[in-house]
């Protein structure tokens, strides 16, 4: 049951996998001759995915330098240039390589900036969920008792509602409640929270399970006796042992977070049209699907699928590489 996951329910937690003694080695030298690096090099699909993802991430990161236009700058949009097809089509115009949307926004620039939004939301929500999940999981597992009870019951409640539903509700509620002035500024953090809230539980459960095992081990008991601070024990001994399954889950969840953001934006409860993410671009473009303006919806869709595909390929490889059973 270890290798399944779903966009709207964190996978069944990964207890079938015993905590391995292998850890992520962070030093470049150690990394270079590790098993992991070897495995990576021998998987061309993983290498390809990593390169493509790096390219997408770099172009997104440096979008302001690369993009022909700043799609957020309303004053730069020229309605006369609206609905131009891609450059290779008959009436395409330089510099609108992939054409323009109905506002005269350059699609390529919108995709670069949109990928940035999608990647940032995906990354930030995974980091936030990790931070909250690991902390709460450690605390719950280490201290047990009522602390554990409260944290895990709260997790139960979250897991008893479908992921996508929680995200829709948080996002829609926040957008409705906020004054318009703040809405644009806070749209991104809101989405990060909306996606992170239902996903921390998975990490917390994984870490808690291993914390509960570790705290009974003799070395922890010994460390306690000599009054080593609890957070030191947690951080230095318990956490590293759980990192492997957590990293695999986090990678796969990164892809899911991007998909979730796109879904929310597609349903109209995500990023607003003046700061489009890839999902927003697809939602807006979908209205023109039958009008012959296919480029408005097709290119962002392709980019979105590419990003998620790359992340999933890397996640898949990572899971197989770290799963001793499949070696």
């Amino acid at each position, binding site marked *: 049951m270890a290798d399944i996951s779903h966009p709207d*329910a964190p996978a069944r937690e990964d207890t079938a996998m015993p905590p391995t003694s292998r850890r992520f080695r962070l030093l470049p030298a150690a990394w270079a001759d590790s098993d992991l690096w070897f495995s990576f090099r021998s998987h061309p699909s993983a290498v390809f995915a990593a390169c493509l993802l790096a390219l997408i991430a770099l172009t997104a990161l440096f979008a302001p330098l690369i993009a022909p236009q700043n799609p957020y700058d309303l004053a730069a949009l020229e309605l006369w240039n609206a609905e131009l097809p891609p450059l290779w089509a008959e009436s395409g115009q330089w510099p609108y390589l992939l054409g323009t949307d109905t506002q005269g926004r350059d699609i390529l620039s919108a995709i670069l900036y949109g990928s940035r939004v999608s990647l940032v939301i995906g990354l930030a929500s995974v980091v936030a969920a990790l931070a909250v999940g690991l902390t709460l999981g450690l605390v719950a597992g280490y201290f047990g008792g009522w602390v554990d009870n409260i944290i895990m019951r709260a997790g*139960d409640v979250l897991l008893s509602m*479908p992921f996508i539903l929680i995200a829709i509700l948080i996002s829609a509620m926040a957008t409705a*409640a906020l004054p318009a002035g703040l809405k644009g500024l806070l749209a991104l953090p809101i989405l990060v929270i909306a996606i992170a809230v239902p996903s921390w539980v998975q990490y917390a459960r994984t870490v808690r399970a291993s914390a509960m095992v570790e705290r009974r081990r003799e070395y922890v008991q010994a460390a306690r006796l000599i009054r080593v601070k609890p957070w030191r024990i947690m951080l230095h001994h318990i956490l590293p042992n759980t990192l492997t399954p957590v990293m695999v889950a986090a990678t796969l969840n990164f*892809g899911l977070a991007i998909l979730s953001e796109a*879904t929310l934006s*597609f*349903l109209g409860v995500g990023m607003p049209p003046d700061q489009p993410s890839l999902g927003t671009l697809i939602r807006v473009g979908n209205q023109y*699907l039958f009008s012959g303006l296919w480029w408005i919806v097709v290119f962002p869709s392709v980019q979105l*699928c590419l990003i998620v595909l790359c992340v999933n390929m890397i996640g898949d490889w990572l899971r197989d590489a770290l799963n001793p059973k499949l070696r």
Partner: protein
Amino acid sequence: MLAFLIKRTANAALVMLAVALLAFLIFRFFGDPVEMMVNEQATQADRAELRERLGLNDGFATQYLRFVAHAAQGDFGISYRNQQDVMTLIGERFPATFELVLVATVISLVLGIPLGVITAVYRRSKLADALQIGSIVGVSLPSFVTGILLILAFSVSLGWLPAFGRGETVDIGWWSTGLLTPSGRAALVLPALSLSTFQVTLVMRLVRAEMLETLRTDYVKFARARGVPAARIHWRHALRNCLMPVITLTGMQIGNLIAFALVTETVFQWPGMGLLFIQAVTFVDIPVMAAYLMLVSFIFVLLNTCVDITYAWVDPRLRDDTAKAGGGNG
């Protein structure tokens, strides 16, 4: 066992209470139903009066208690938008979503299991590699993109299948089914395919993983050594071993599919609960939103509790609470 049962049930009830609080909290601060209900020409006094009659001016605790008391009896009030009893409304929509989810589940098993076996048995072949890549692509395609593509191909370009709605339905008691008419079945094909894309890959990957493990077990090796035909080993003995996890997964995923159906239903204008919910979000139809959230959570909790209880029944070790914490409550 009885103690475990009681404990599990009580736990589920507590979770539902918390869901109710959360639902209530969210809805209390979300939009303004009064604006949706009054005439454009209503005066401020009219609005204030309606607000009073709806009980929107009462204290927080009063409103919550009223909500829970009514919800426990299945009474979520009257939909602001349709002016119909909410449970009746959801009851009318439930068959549409259920049939969609059912057919999607069937498709996922019919396609997922054979594909999983093939990728496991011929794991070094080109076909398996292609299928593996296909499965990653399947997971990476957002379901709304799949839906749009299916509509473009099969409805607009080829004109084979309808792009929206349920087609002709037949009423059997209170249940309206689209499975008995040609147009109802035709209308079901694209949404069910779109909803099942993800589930197919999920089943396929699970079957593959379980098969790989089973194929390494001693009894399969013995069977091979004894000269049992490979097909018989793979499709009967080994596959039978993987079915339990597949059934568990399928059962637990039903709740997820019901929730995720709201995207599919939006794309295909499928008149199910999900579409009702999305429309309720747009219209700030609070009673419908509350009822939907509670109902879907209830289905979720019910399925999870059943799975837990079944597992505990099969494996007594899991009745101990500490062990359960690591067990299957996903």
